[in-house]
C-alpha cells in the first residue's frame, strides 16, 4: 500500500512537469492557433543553463530563475520567427517551430555537449503514509499548483490576461477593440517559454536532461494538451498528472521499459473516446 502511495506521489511530481509543458503548449495555441513543437526545447535549454549557473557558483533560486528567464527568451525568439511575419499561417508556423527545435539540438550540443546533466534539488526524504518520498517531488507538485493558480488568476482577473483570452476567444473581435493580436501572440510564446523552462528546472533534479530530452517532454506534454483540445489548461493539468501517475505506477509494478508506451496507449484511448463523443480538435480536422 505504501508502495502505491509512493508511486502516486512521485507520479504526480513527474506529471506536473508534463502539465507545465502542456500548459505552455495550450497558452501558445489558444492565442496563435500554432502547435509549438519547440516547447520541449525550452525545458532542455532552461535545465542546461541552470546546471551551468549552479556549477559557476550561483545559489539555488537565482540559477533556476536564470533558466526560466532563458526559457521565456527562447519562447519570444521562437514566436518572433514563427509568427512575426504578418499572414503566416498556423501550419507554416508549426513547421517553423519544428525546425527551430532541431536547430536548438545543434546549439545545445555545441555549448553543453551530448552527455546527460543534472543538478541537486531539495535534499531529504519525506515520509507520507508510510511511503518515503524524495522531498523534491513535493516541491515540484507545490510549485506547479501555485503556478496553475496564478495562471487562472492572471487569465481571468488581469487586463492583460483578459486580452490574451479575448484573442483566444475571438481573434477578429479582439482586433476590433484594438488589441494587437500579433503582440499578444508573442506574449503567449514568452509565457509558453517560461512554463517550459520551469518544467525543465523543476524536473531535472529527478530526471537527468540531455539535448534530446525534449522528445519525451513534448510527446507527453502534447498528449496532455490534446486531451483538453489544446485550449483548456485545467484539463491539460489533469492529463499531465494522469500520464505521470500511470507511467510511474507501470514502471513500479511492471517494469520501466514499457512505462511511456502504456501511458500513451491510455491517453490515445481517452482521446479516441473523447473524439467519438465531441468531434476532433477543430485545427486538427482541417
Amino acid at each position: 500500500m505504501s508502495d502505491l502511495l509512493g508511486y502516486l506521489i512521485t507520479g504526480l511530481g513527474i506529471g506536473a512537469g508534463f502539465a507545465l509543458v502542456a500548459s505552455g503548449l495550450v497558452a501558445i495555441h489558444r492565442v496563435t492557433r500554432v502547435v509549438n513543437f519547440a516547447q520541449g526545447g525550452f525545458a532542455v535549454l532552461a535545465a542546461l543553463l541552470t546546471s551551468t549557473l549552479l556549477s559557476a557558483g550561483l545559489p539555488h533560486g537565482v540559477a533556476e530563475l536564470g533558466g526560466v528567464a532563458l526559457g521565456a527568451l527562447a519562447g519570444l525568439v521562437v514566436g518572433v520567427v514563427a509568427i512575426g511575419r504578418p499572414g503566416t499561417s498556423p501550419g507554416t508556423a508549426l513547421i517553423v517551430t519544428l525546425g527551430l527545435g532541431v536547430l536548438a539540438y545543434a546549439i545545445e550540443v555545441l555549448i553543453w555537449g551530448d552527455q546527460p546533466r543534472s543538478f541537486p534539488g531539495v535534499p531529504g526524504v519525506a515520509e507520507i503514509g508510510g511511503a518515503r518520498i524524495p522531498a523534491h517531488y513535493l516541491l515540484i507538485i507545490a510549485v506547479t499548483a501555485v503556478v496553475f493558480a496564478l495562471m487562472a488568476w492572471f487569465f481571468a482577473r488581469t487586463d492583460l490576461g483578459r486580452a490574451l483570452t479575448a484573442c483566444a476567444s475571438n481573434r477578429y473581435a479582439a482586433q476590433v477593440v484594438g488589441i494587437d493580436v500579433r503582440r499578444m501572440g508573442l506574449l503567449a510564446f514568452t509565457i509558453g517559454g517560461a512554463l517550459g523552462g520551469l518544467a525543465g528546472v523543476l524536473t531535472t533534479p529527478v530526471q537527468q536532461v540531455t539535448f534530446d530530452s525534449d522528445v519525451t517532454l513534448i510527446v507527453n506534454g502534447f498528449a496532455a494538451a490534446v486531451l483538453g483540445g489544446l485550449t483548456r489548461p485545467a484539463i491539460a493539468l489533469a492529463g499531465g498528472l494522469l500520464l505521470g501517475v500511470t507511467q510511474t505506477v507501470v514502471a513500479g509494478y511492471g517494469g520501466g521499459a514499457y512505462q511511456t508506451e502504456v501511458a500513451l496507449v491510455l491517453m490515445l484511448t481517452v482521446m479516441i473516446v473523447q473524439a467519438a463523443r465531441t468531434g476532433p480538435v477543430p485545427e486538427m480536422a482541417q
Partner: protein
Amino acid sequence: MTGAVDIGNLTVRYAGATALDDVSLSVAENEMTALIGANGAGKSTLVKALAGLVRPSSGTISVHGRLAHVPEGREMFPDMTVDDNLRLGGWRTRKRNTTPVYDLLPDLAAIRSRKAGSLSGGQQQMVAIGRALMADPDVLVIDELSLGLAPMIVTALVDHLRTLHATRELAVLLIEQNARLALDLCQHAYVLESGRIALHGPAATLARDPRVTAAYLGGHVTVTP
C-alpha cells in the same frame, strides 16, 4: 473636408479584385450618416478600411477623434461575461469603468454577469454597441445593426441609438442592408453599388429617389420616427 470622417478616393483591392473603387465619403460631426447597398457592394470592406483592418491600395482616410466599430454579426467574446466584454472595449483608452455604459444602456446592467454567448441576438447587439462606447468614441461605425434581428428588437435598438445620439456628441456611420431603416434614422446617406458610390445626398431626398425606392425600399422594416 472638415467632417468627423473624410474618405477621399479610396480604393481597396483583394488579390486583384477591386472591392472599393475611388470611393469618397464624408460623415459630418454629430450627424448620422447611412451607407446602404446590396450584399457584396463593398460596405464591410469600407468599414474594415476605416477600422484599420484592411490596407487600402490608394486614397485617404481621415478620422477626427476616436473611432469605434460595432462589427457585423456582433462578434462577442462568448465565454466572457457582459462586463468583461465591455471592459475589453476600453482596451485602447485604458478605460475600465463600465458604469457610464450601464447608465446609457440600462438593459445591460441586468445581464452584466451573464456570458455573452448565452444572450439573444438583440442583447448581443446591445453589448456590441456598449463595448464600442467604452472606447469613448467621437465616431461610431455600426456595421449591419439589424442583421438577423426581429423587427421589434431592431425598433428597440434604434430607439437606444437615437437616445445615444441625442445625449452624446457622436457622429454615426450606419452601414445597413435595411435601407428603409437607415434612411429613416440618418440625416445623410450614400448608396454603394459594386464598390462605387452611386448616389449620395440628404437621406429624406434619397428615400424619394425612384432609383433608391426601386432597388432598396421593397418590403423592409419601417421604423416609426
